[in-house]
């Protein structure tokens, strides 16, 4: 326990006071304005359903896999969605391997609530044989680098990975009881049906004068008195709001935050959609090349 505390971020009083005082003049340490996001870049791996998101210094990888399982008794027609969050020890010296800490569990719950309860992913289309065989989708989020605001980055990574994931096509066997899963070479795998993209936007409340900043860095997180995460989509729905303890905040401030969050959610959604589209074009180009007998030359 002492080892973990010894490894966590220790800030001097000067650093804390500087962050708070600068914010009174609407200045942030990295030069942003209070409601500016850091640079968001989304890239994809070779396989379908793997994404890597970089938000400033924060880096998160998302992997989506699917498996055929028996459904839950009370929901025989629906597939399942499970989110596993790994706070890798490489992200922060205070993260320990092994059991997830409370912030890892809270992050997993926020992303889970945003996706599951808003019904962003269509689970009924994941059913193969009612009551016997459904697809269980598993999302693994690996936090690689902690530069602050892990919730937003993890959410984007989960959404990007889900948007590019493809599950194998399956048909029923002769007697209608067995499921034949077709390999990707035989039949083109199918994407998931995603109704909307719930985007999480995090606000930090620093100091006493109702100072609000969006997308805090890990230095600002060490100084903040409280934080709020709002998960919204571009249809104007609020999917989830999380404000767990911390400083009390005026209602007008909360409403202002929600208004800003809906604008930011629109920006982030369009970034995710354009990244997914370019990945899909590149994927179909790759498929065309595969059927071409290429000469014996491997690109170096």
């Amino acid at each position, binding site marked *: 326990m002492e*080892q973990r505390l*010894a*490894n966590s971020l220790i800030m001097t009083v000067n650093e804390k006071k500087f962050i708070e005082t600068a914010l009174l003049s609407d200045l942030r340490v990295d030069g942003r304005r209070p409601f500016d996001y850091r640079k968001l870049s989304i890239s994809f*791996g*070779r*396989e379908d359903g*793997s994404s890597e998101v970089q938000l400033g*210094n924060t*880096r998160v*990888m998302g*992997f989506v*896999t699917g498996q055929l399982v028996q459904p839950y008794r009370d929901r025989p027609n629906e597939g399942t969605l499970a989110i596993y969050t*790994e706070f*890798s*020890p*490489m*992200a*922060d*010296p205070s993260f320990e*391997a092994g059991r997830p800490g409370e912030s890892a569990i809270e992050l997993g719950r926020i992303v889970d609530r945003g996706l599951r309860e808003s019904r962003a992913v269509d689970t009924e289309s994941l059913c193969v044989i009612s009551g016997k065989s459904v697809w269980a989708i*598993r999302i*693994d989020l*690996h936090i*690689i*680098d*902690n*530069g602050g605001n892990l919730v937003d980055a993890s959410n984007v990574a989960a959404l990007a990975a889900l948007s590019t994931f493809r599950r194998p096509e399956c048909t029923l066997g002769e007697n209608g009881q067995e499921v034949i899963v077709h390999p990707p070479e035989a039949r083109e795998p199918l994407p998931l049906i995603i109704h909307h993209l719930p985007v999480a936007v995090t606000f930090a409340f620093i100091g006493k004068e109702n100072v609000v900043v969006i997308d805090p860095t890990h230095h600002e997180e060490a100084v903040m008195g409280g934080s709020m995460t709002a998960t919204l989509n571009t249809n104007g729905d609020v999917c989830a709001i999380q404000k767990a303890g911390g400083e009390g905040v005026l209602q007008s401030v909360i409403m202002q935050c929600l208004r800003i969050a809906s604008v930011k959610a629109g920006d982030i959604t369009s970034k995710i959609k354009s990244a997914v589209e370019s990945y899909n074009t590149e994927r179909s180009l790759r498929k065309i090349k595969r059927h071409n007998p*290429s*000469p*014996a*030359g*491997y*690109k*170096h």
Partner: protein
Amino acid sequence: MAVDRADGRTPNQRRPVACTRGILHRAHGSASWAQGDTKVIAAVYGPKAGTRKNENPEKACIEVIWKPKTGQSGKPEREYEMVLKKTLQSICLLNVHPNTTTSIVIQVVNDDGALLPCAINAACAALVDAGIPLKHLAVAICCCMAEGGHILLDPSKIEEQKVKAFVYLVFPNSMVSVLPQGSLRLGGELMEHGIITSVTHGMMAVDDYFSCLKLGRAAAAELSDLLRSSLKLKAGNDPSKAG
């Protein structure tokens, strides 16, 4: 006789290597190593105060954490951690910082064959990026025995599953010496011909194993030249890392 490999390589050709150092901001040293489609990220934190319970406090301790791409860490991950720990212990100078722990965290991004050699190479590059004192580098390569008795270098996952045996080999990197007598010799043999680690899967004849060693050594020498040039390139414009 030409052996047809699925991606058009010759039997002695390894996949293209992409190595980048300093990719993470919080870690003291980090590197990503990709051989073809197999990609691994390694991060180093250290040296931290104190050693773990059963470790020798008079030397530095190396701790390896292996994170698979999906799923829980199980027995195969424990085995990889043990092999990596023993390999890195033999290349680090353990007496420089006694009673400290250096942690190396490995994250698998994609596994397309030769995962452990990729991880060893990534860990080595990350240790260099962190500035941990090393005796020499460890260069890892994989060789496998295909059906007709051919030896293939750097198999992909499909090739690894089809062959009857494969071996992961780790050699020290080739030495460039300023001394007139040339490279260091130990008992008449060149230092870089020593084997740091060898992990075999499946059954192969003794002669085949020696042929794999010969091929592996040549490949490791070529790979260590590539490492030398890529590490030198970065060292010139390296800004200091704060905390």
